[in-house]
């Protein structure tokens, strides 16, 4: 891969001037034929790809009101043009949300509208050529489907929906992306993104039990495939081994332990992530969601709780009931599904956890709202619970907390730069540049309030930040899990050691 410079951080953030073609060279590795065929997609670009692509676009238009309305409704007002972190980090005009949509819209207009059929030059309609297809592959893989643009669009036009549709079309003509499609194949086959089989999973979790016992003197269980448990925990597989994810998993285990509930993970559905959303495939997404339903039925659980993962929570919260529901075999007294933050926050509000905030005194925290939680889901009973609940948990566990600037948090949050199926080394340049707006906002609170750590509730955000933060002069372990803070602060019954905080 070509060398590139990490963007300079300017305070305040500057809107770049247009730099045409700046990111034209960046596209992800293509899926190999076997990755494609495992999902029922053609192995390589089919001969009649142009007709097939147009047919597929027509089909998607008839299946999605969003796509149909968004293709027609844009007035080119430009309100979204400076809202995408990839545009802000690169200046490439095709990373402006409306320009990204236009890559598909110009083809839509050409083949599906009166004006585009007869007056293409007037409305910017274009034939679907090889160049256009290459642009699709390049720039629809420079969108993390974070929905920031949709917040500011007067019609709520959501570029994420457009990117998903474009990727779905490309998959169906044999032009898939390796990273997503390989991973989805692994989930269908083994049950998680990593391809971690049952024995390895059991082994890993036993190791964690030993670690917790060593640290606290208390036996805290992390059960696998335990039939008859009350709660099925579905968490991103990165939680089983990656840093700082695993510290979050230890946090969930301690909370369950203190709450006195029985719980288990499933080796069959050992993955919260559902990358099928990134490729816009209803059918693939449904297949993955049904694994979770089956695991819950087979294990006979009463509740399903999701761990810290952004897009997984969007799929779980918004889509799972549609795709794999109704979940009438679960206990209807609890939200289906529930987020681990909702579970922990309930206990905190009831005063059932003993939390020693001073154990996090070596850190000054801020919180990164993950896009899919912030703009694609909710927690709790009222709108915006997805903002207040994680913050309430952090504040219950830490003495030092400062929010970043208002236009970079809550629904205005900036993506980490690695979401939407972009968390792969072949896209490291766009990931790094796309992180610039978030890094800028972080730098401000570091300078102003002495913030030392940023907490997050998304596996992708955590992996992305530990990779790109060093490029911006931070440490890779300046990113922490929210439940890692809980894990540090929580005082377990019968705990022998006085201080279980991780010292940096």
């Amino acid at each position: 891969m070509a060398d590139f410079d990490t963007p300079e951080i300017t305070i305040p953030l500057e809107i770049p001037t247009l730099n045409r073609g700046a990111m034209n060279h960046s596209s992800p590795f293509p899926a190999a034929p076997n990755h494609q065929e495992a999902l029922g997609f053609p192995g390589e670009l089919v001969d009649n790809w142009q007709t097939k692509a147009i047919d597929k676009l027509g089909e998607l238009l008839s299946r999605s009101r969003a796509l149909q309305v968004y293709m027609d409704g844009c007035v080119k007002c430009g309100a979204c043009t400076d809202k995408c972190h990839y545009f802000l980090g690169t200046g490439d005009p095709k990373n402006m949300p409306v320009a990204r949509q236009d890559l598909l819209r110009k083809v839509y207009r050409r083949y599906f509208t009166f004006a585009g059929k007869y007056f293409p030059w007037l409305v910017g309609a274009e034939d679907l050529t090889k160049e256009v297809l290459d642009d699709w592959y390049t720039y629809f893989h420079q969108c993390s489907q974070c929905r920031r643009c949709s917040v500011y669009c007067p019609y709520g036009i959501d570029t994420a929906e457009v990117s998903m549709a474009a990727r779905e079309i490309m998959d169906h003509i044999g032009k898939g992306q390796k990273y997503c499609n390989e991973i989805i194949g692994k989930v269908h086959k083994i049950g998680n993104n990593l391809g971690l089989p049952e024995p390895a999973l059991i082994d890993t979790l036993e190791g964690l039990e030993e670690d917790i016992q060593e640290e606290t003197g208390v036996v805290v269980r992390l059960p696998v495939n335990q039939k008859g448990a009350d709660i099925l925990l579905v968490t991103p597989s990165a939680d089983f081994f990656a840093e700082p994810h695993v510290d979050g998993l230890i946090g969930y285990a301690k909370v369950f332990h203190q709450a006195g509930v029985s719980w288990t993970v499933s080796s069959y559905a050992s993955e919260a992530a559902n990358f099928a959303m990134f490729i816009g495939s209803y059918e693939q997404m449904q297949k993955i969601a049904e694994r979770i339903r089956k695991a819950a039925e087979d294990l006979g659980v009463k509740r399903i709780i999701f761990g810290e993962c952004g897009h997984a929570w969007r799929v779980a919260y918004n889509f799972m009931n549609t795709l794999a529901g109704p979940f009438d075999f679960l206990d209807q007294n609890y939200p289906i599904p529930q987020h681990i933050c909702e579970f922990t926050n309930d206990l905190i509000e009831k005063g059932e956890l003993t939390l020693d905030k001073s154990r996090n005194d070596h850190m000054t925290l801020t919180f990164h709202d993950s896009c899919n939680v912030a703009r694609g889901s909710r927690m709790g009973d009222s709108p915006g619970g997805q903002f207040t609940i994680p913050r309430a948990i952090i504040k219950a566990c830490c003495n030092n907390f400062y929010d970043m600037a208002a236009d970079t948090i809550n629904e205005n949050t900036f993506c980490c730069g690695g979401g939407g199926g972009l968390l792969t080394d072949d896209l490291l340049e766009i990931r790094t540049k796309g992180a610039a707006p978030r890094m800028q906002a972080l730098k401000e609170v570091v300078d102003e309030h002495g913030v030392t750590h940023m907490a997050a509730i998304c596996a992708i955000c955590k992996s992305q930040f530990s990779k790109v933060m060093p490029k911006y002069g931070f440490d890779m372990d300046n990113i922490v899990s929210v439940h890692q803070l809980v894990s540090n602060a929580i005082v377990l019954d019968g705990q022998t050691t006085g201080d279980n905080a991780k010292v940096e």
Partner: protein
Amino acid sequence: MVLGTVYAVLFYFAVAIFAVGLAFRIRLYARTPAPLKIPTTPAPVTQAGVVVRMAKEVVFFESLFKANKWTWLFGWIFHAALLLVLLRHLRYFTEPVWFWVGWVQPFGMYAGFAMTAGLAGLWVRRFTVERVRYISSPSDHLMLLLLIGIAATGLMMKYVAHTDILSLKAFILGLLYFDWQPIPADPVLLVHLALVLILLIIFPFSKLLHAPGVFFSPGRNQVDNPREKRHFVPQTKLPGK
């Protein structure tokens, strides 16, 4: 009378295209399934909340206000003035004039200028802001030009070259009651009406579809209650349709 006939035919033609075209488009939007819950959150958790959210978007352009104050200012002035101007025009279509249309008249006087100013501001943005220039097609410029043309010819009739309003009204009422009357052969009026007919004809085939479209945007019109109430659209169960 020949001129009157030509304009009468064009008028019926344009209104037919507008009404039928728009009806088909709205039917398409209404019938296309929305398979998944995709409101941009935080979103209202009740249907009443959605009505409030939509009202704030349509009346105040709330999201646009968050995004860009200049575009909001010009855009909102243009639309608000357009609405007043349209209401004011009702007096040419009603006999006796509905009482409340009379109340609008004084505001309508200034609305023509406000509308032109708003449109001019939007057009200047299209040229001067590099990002907006990049995303503009010829049609985006022509749309603004068309609306400015309508507003300018309208203002000309009010302040420069008065037209015979009484016979114009007779012409319009004649169209409504199929009792055709001659049209005043006034060049400014004829241009004004021709531009309006063009606007009606292109409406269902252009980005002006944002007006009905906004009400169908799943990002804005869905209730955020997927856990409480299962959202299920049967057509989507079957792959491919």
